[in-house]
């Protein structure tokens, strides 16, 4: 497959890999209790976020199954980091990928996630030739559930009390979309080279 062309521009965002300088802007939302409820790794203070950032900075491409690509969502105008989105290549033979995202609540509700996740779907299906993308959500995370519905994903699973999560019974939804089901957005395109970061 051709080499990945980053950053990616959407209507209002630039999706790029993470940099060391993103620490404070990342910590601003990654340490929030509301965020801790849904993330995998504990990041309760800046030191723990620095560890997470190191890992995210290494997520720059998908070379083999198990790899993750993590992109910072930055606003085109002021270059502010508003959240991040990732694509995990979970299975090569069956072409499966998982998308996850986080948004700084201060910037939520403006459609940034939808824009970023849509661009990552394009990347998954068109560039990485993934066959099926799935997303998971806690049953109480209504913003996340609404987003997946807006993206045209199908609800494939609704698990109840199938696991313990942070000491409580978990409720988990799985949404999925196949390559032939994804409605491509005409508005998403690669940025011309002059806009690329370093």
């Amino acid at each position, binding site marked *: 497959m051709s080499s990945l062309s980053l950053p990616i521009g959407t209507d209002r965002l630039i999706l790029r890999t993470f940099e060391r300088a993103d620490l404070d802007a990342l910590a601003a939302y990654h340490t929030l209790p509301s965020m801790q409820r849904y993330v995998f790794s504990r990041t309760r203070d800046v030191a723990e976020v620095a560890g997470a950032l190191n890992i995210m900075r290494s997520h720059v491409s998908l070379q083999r199954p198990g790899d993750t690509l993590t992109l910072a969502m930055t606003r085109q105008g002021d270059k502010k980091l508003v959240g991040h989105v990732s694509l995990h290549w979970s*299975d090569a*033979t*069956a072409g*499966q990928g998982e998308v996850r995202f986080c948004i700084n609540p201060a910037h939520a509700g403006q459609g940034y996630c939808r824009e970023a996740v849509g661009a990552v779907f394009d990347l998954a299906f068109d560039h990485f030739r993934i*066959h*099926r993308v*799935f997303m998971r959500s806690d049953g109480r995370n209504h913003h996340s559930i609404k987003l997946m519905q807006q993206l045209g994903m*199908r609800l*494939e*699973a*609704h*698990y*109840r*009390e*199938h*696991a*313990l999560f942070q000491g409580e019974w978990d409720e988990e939804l*799985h949404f*999925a979309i*196949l390559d032939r089901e994804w409605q491509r957005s005409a508005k998403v395109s690669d940025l011309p080279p002059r806009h690329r970061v370093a």
Partner: protein
Amino acid sequence: MALYPDYPIRTERLLLRPFTRGDVDAVFAYRRREDVARYLFDVALSREECALAVQQRISQVALEAEGDKIILAVELAESGALIGEVSLIWRSVDARQGEVGWIFDPQYHGHGYATEAANAMLDLAFGPGDIHRVAARCDVRNEASWRLMERLGMRREAHFREHALFKSQWDEEFIYALLWQEWRALRAG
């Protein structure tokens, strides 16, 4: 908690008991069939493979650690005929999760034996097994299997499409589940 059931487990018409070496021919009678193997992970088995499968099952009689399986031969109480098997897997110790499964000889389909045997496994899981949630899965095309799950009172929790390859084709899978409180309500009603 660890589970060491007393065998045999008796239901109205059936006996659920550990496998023995003498069961190979009866197991081969249905595991050799293509229609039985279609939705199993295994292909149709040779007699030698059946002997190996039975050998493994002889010791699968208790749940001591995560991932352990209880696989029991299902016998008609009246004739002693072996008509299939039922299984219970301990999927998670912490979250008290189990999974049930079954394979039956088509010769004995249509009498409610599978329902009777599977209900006994649910009672084992939720009763002495102290399991909180029991799941079961099958290929979407295996209507007999998911109809059975519905007769057991299980809810359809998942319908995965093309999420994996199964025997070189796109897989489509249902997952059903039953919670402890739902099982208790079923048995009370």
